């Protein structure tokens, strides 16, 4: 009995050692794997399957060129797309994206992505696989205005049952699609050789034919943090820029940035020096203005540098302004999101006052140099999705789904209106 317990305990250690980076853990992969093989992993897989079945509050949106709002949401084992011409109040009948049922990740930092450009609807998402914390990056599109969707394809060209998760998508005006994600293939390869590898890789794939096909996967960076969303925005020249939480040294989990132009070497964006051997589940956001200024926001819980931060870069990410620390530190400010519309910049984030979750926002009229006083835009008394910002026709909106109130699209006020 006790020996069995020991074997199972060792199994857990082995699974996690093969999963997230355990640079601080003094264990030996080879020995642990041997111990693990004697214990059946049934229970852990059952747990994962149960977690996959949890209902998702994730709603992702985009405006098309005519100001029509398109929504992607998860119900059961399908993604459904609908549209609204009245800011989400009434919606069209939802259309199924994936005909075959799949486990679609939609909790916390995971959500399906939707982009609508010139009549084409692009969808990316992460499909959860049978083993815990594993997934494939999937893509589908609609060429008939959302009436039907193509059979989803797997974008990652490494097909091991490992983590390819936390997809993010961008489409430029040349019709190119970029999908980036966090990928454990290098960790998996290192583990097979008995070597260590901190974190996982950031990979991406490009389509030059509006998603008919994708070029082979490209690695953008080694040693990204395992479980925080990746942010992506299109630069003015049509190259996407990615921002993610990175693992520096042993376990410093600050942010990095790279332009996916095939030339740029990743640079460090934030320097809070948050040393944590754990899962923050709290990724960054990025927006690029028409004038080419990068606007980034992120979270840190480093002892000396806590909370939400914002900074901008006028030189394509090489240097950033001194980070602005915002949000009420007594109210758990969390999950910030940024949107720029010309020289106007908007930030939204979550706060919790002990009873209710509120979405707070502030705006800048001068490209992020000065900011309005934060104000509460919406609240709820139960669980809710992360807040998002989208813009159309030079107007910014907060997009937020809550368990009690449902989906809301809320206009962001401007000072001069």
């Amino acid at each position, binding site marked *: *009995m006790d020996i069995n317990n020991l074997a199972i*305990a060792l199994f*857990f*250690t082995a699974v996690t050692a093969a999963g997230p980076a355990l640079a601080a853990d003094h264990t030996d992969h080879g020995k642990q794997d041997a111990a693990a093989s004697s214990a059946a992993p049934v229970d852990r897989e059952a*747990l994962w399957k149960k*977690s996959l079945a949890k209902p998702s509050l994730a709603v992702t949106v985009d405006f098309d060129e005519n100001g029509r709002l398109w929504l992607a949401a998860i119900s059961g084992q399908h993604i459904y797309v609908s549209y609204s011409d009245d800011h989400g109040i009434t919606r069209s009948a939802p259309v199924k994206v994936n005909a075959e049922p799949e486990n679609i990740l939609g909790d916390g930092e995971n959500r399906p992505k939707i982009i609508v450009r010139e009549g084409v609807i692009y969808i990316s998402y992460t499909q959860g696989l049978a083993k815990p914390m594993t997934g494939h990056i999937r893509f589908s599109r609609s060429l008939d205005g959302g009436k039907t969707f193509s059979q989803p394809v797997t974008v990652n060209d490494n097909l091991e049952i490992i983590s390819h998760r936390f997809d993010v998508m961008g489409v430029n005006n040349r019709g190119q699609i970029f999908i980036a994600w966090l990928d454990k293939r290098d960790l998996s390869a290192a583990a097979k050789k008995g070597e260590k590898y901190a974190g996982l890789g950031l990979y991406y794939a490009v389509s030059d034919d509006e998603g008919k096909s994708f070029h082979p996967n490209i690695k953008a960076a080694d040693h990204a943090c395992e479980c925080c969303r990746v942010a992506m925005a299109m630069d003015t020249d049509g190259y996407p820029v990615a921002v993610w939480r990175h693992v520096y040294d042993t376990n410093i989990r600050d942010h990095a940035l790279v332009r996916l132009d095939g030339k740029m070497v990743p640079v460090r964006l934030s320097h809070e020096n948050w040393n944590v051997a754990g*899962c923050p589940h709290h990724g960054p956001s990025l927006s690029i203005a028409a004038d080419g200024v990068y606007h980034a926001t992120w979270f840190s819980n480093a002892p000396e540098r806590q909370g939400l931060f914002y900074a901008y870069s006028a030189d394509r990410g090489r240097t950033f302004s001194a980070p602005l620390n915002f949000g009420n530190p007594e109210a*758990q400010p969390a999950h910030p999101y940024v949107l720029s519309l010309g020289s106007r910049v908007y930030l939204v984030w979550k706060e919790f006052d002990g009873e209710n979750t509120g979405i707070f926002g502030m705006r800048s009229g001068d490209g992020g140099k000065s900011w309005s006083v934060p104000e509460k835009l919406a609240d709820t008394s139960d669980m809710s999705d992360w807040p998002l910002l989208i813009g159309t026709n030079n107007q910014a909106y907060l997009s937020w789904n809550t368990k009690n109130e449902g989906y809301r699209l809320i206009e962001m006020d401007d000072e001069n209106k």
Partner: protein
Amino acid sequence: MRRFGFFAGLCLTVLSLAPAPTLAAQEIKPFVRGSYQQIVSARQGKPFIINFWSLSCGYCKVELSMFRELVRKYPQLDLVVISTDTYEEMESVSGTLEMFSLGKSETWLFADSNTDRLRFEIDKRWYGELPRTYFFGADGKTNAFSGKLEQKDVEQWIMEQYGFR
């Protein structure tokens, strides 16, 4: 050197396992509003550790195996283990805890769908990152720590608090 450390740790675990009595399934208490205060005030003036974990957190499992070893090595250690999963996941949480068999440690499970509210009561400066551990000293001094702990640091704290050499 590292390898030696691992085996030494393993031997210790095996040895200390042998005389341990088989325990019945542990009671898992529902963690609701007020629970945290209840846990803390019941222990005033005494040293204890509160550890938060969840089923989906890989590092937490590594840490639970460490605590498994520590509660055997230091039977005086007052450890409270709180799962941030949902009450619907009781069965899975219970199964996992049984595997880690944490002796007489008190075990709890979040039982309010609004986890933000529970977290706020615990610590306004905690954002839900896991594992999360609080060290309550006998002198009332509290230390919060996010991420996987180093065993030597925890042992040092235990020795200081419980008066081991």
